[in-house]
């Protein structure tokens, strides 16, 4: 019986990437590929240098390596993403970041605008990086068109950076149990509300990916046309998808709310506000 699971990943080294150095990706690549030892991996790349480095690691871990050359400019989401990056340049929240510097870590838009877009000064590199993060759903579509694997796992090359930091961190052990995109949770916020989805690992069967890709594409188009200036990556767009169709998502690192939690919650409910104030969360 042919293997049913395909891992998909990509690596584009963008000059001027203020988010991560090339070494960051190569360091985590090794551990990420180690986790998919013996599996099948479709890998999108642009430069021969990247291909040779990744091929060497894939060989080491006996991976059925399926490289696919695709230049960023030929990426199907390239043009729309550049509009998104350009719109984000208007997110001029300098007075807020002076008062609340922590927002550059917690809040997605601030994080993107101040750290990576560099207040609009790093537009060219930022626009390319954004293709890499936003465009993963299109790469999955390409994978589904080319191969007939039943389960498709998107994995960032640096996904192993979360090892031991989140529940069920070993994505190779995640089994798909419903027609939904299985994902980890995010700690970043959008207007103070927690993002619904973290984009480093996303898995689902063909049916889930087909529904998701259609929804994501629609939300992406609406976002671009709306002229919204809040800097968005795949995660805010997936949050919008989640708000629209929550049944299409399945969180894999959920800390279950047990009977004890519910009972304690009932007892504490009269003190809810004061407890949140005490924990500095009100």
């Amino acid at each position: 019986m042919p293997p049913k699971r395909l891992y998909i990943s990509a690596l584009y080294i963008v000059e001027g990437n203020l988010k991560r150095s090339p070494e960051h990706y190569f360091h985590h690549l090794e551990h990420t590929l180690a986790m998919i030892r013996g599996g099948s991996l479709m890998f999108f790349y642009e430069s021969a240098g990247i291909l040779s480095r990744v091929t060497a690691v894939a060989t080491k871990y006996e991976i059925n390596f399926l490289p696919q050359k695709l230049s960023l400019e030929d990426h199907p989401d390239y043009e729309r993403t550049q509009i998104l990056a350009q719109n984000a340049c208007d997110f001029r929240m300098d007075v807020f970041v002076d008062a609340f510097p922590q927002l550059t870590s917690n809040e997605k838009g601030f994080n993107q605008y101040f750290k990576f877009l560099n207040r609009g000064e790093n537009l060219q590199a930022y626009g390319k990086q954004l293709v890499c993060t936003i465009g993963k759903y299109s790469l999955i579509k390409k994978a589904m068109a080319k191969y007939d694997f039943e389960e498709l796992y998107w994995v960032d090359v640096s996904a192993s950076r979360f090892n031991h930091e989140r529940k069920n961190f070993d994505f190779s052990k995640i089994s798909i149990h419903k027609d939904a995109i299985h994902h980890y949770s995010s700690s970043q916020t959008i207007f103070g509300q927690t993002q619904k989805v973290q984009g480093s690992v996303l898995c689902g069967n063909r049916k889930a990916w087909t529904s998701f890709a259609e929804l994501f594409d629609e939300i992406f188009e609406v976002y671009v046309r709306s002229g919204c200036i809040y800097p968005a990556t795949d995660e805010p767009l997936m949050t919008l998808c989640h708000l629209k169709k929550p049944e299409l998502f399945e969180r894999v690192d959920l800390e279950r709310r047990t009977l004890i939690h519910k009972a304690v919650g009932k007892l504490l409910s009269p003190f809810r506000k004061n407890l949140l104030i005490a924990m500095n969360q009100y």
Partner: protein
Amino acid sequence: MKKKRLYVSGLWIIEGNTKRSRQHYLDLLPETFKILRGEHLVFFCESEDIKAVVLSLAQRYKVSLTIKHLPIQQHPDYALTKQMAGNIRPENFKIWADAFKGSGTHEKALNQQRFLQNSRHDIYSTITTCTLGKVSLLNEITLENNYAEYFWIDASASREYISGKMDFRRWRLKPGAINHRVSGMKLFGKHQTASGMVLGGEPQVWQKLHGIYQSLLKTYIFSRCPHPGTDEVLMSLIAKKHPELFHCKNPTRTWLHKVIGKIIWNLRLTSFINRALN
């Protein structure tokens, strides 16, 4: 000898204001005047019918009233707020306001979106003049009068419950600070520092706040900040750099909260309690 306290308020009925109707204010004004029974009040307004209403209410509730005629276009902050509103376009965050609608968010930028979308843009900026401009009016009044304390009070302040610690008439002001209530609205998930409905302070505090406030307002405009700016937003930004300038009369975090918070943290119960509280 200085007289004790002067209240300052104002009301401009802006045609096309989708946030509040004219009737909303007319319904709440009598109760606000009742609250101010026997007090001294300066009231800014433009239209003759509002003047007539407040005069009659002042007589009924024995409020010592001075009416200040101020067409909204002559408000000291009118031109600045017009400029500021130019950067605040309805499409900036509409998609997020729609997405989070009904999820219980009290986020300022998303909340303001309702008024931005439903009003003509010039109407939105004029409404902003009314809310944002109170500090300038207070500053002006402190320079013209000789009271020990000055209070801003919204014409519609009676919409909120007034008793106990919330009864500003019985507030003993903390010197050197603007005394205020907590705000229910949030900026990127954190509560704004102060509600702009009732604000009290000594004249020198108002004058100091006015200087910082005007400087920040100009920076806000110059940097073309796209976030809707109101008095509460500016005060929250100022409070981060000048916390000594603000004193909350209904402190949300007492020493008891801090002790309990420390215990929860040390026992590593934060995650458990969060889940319990859902």
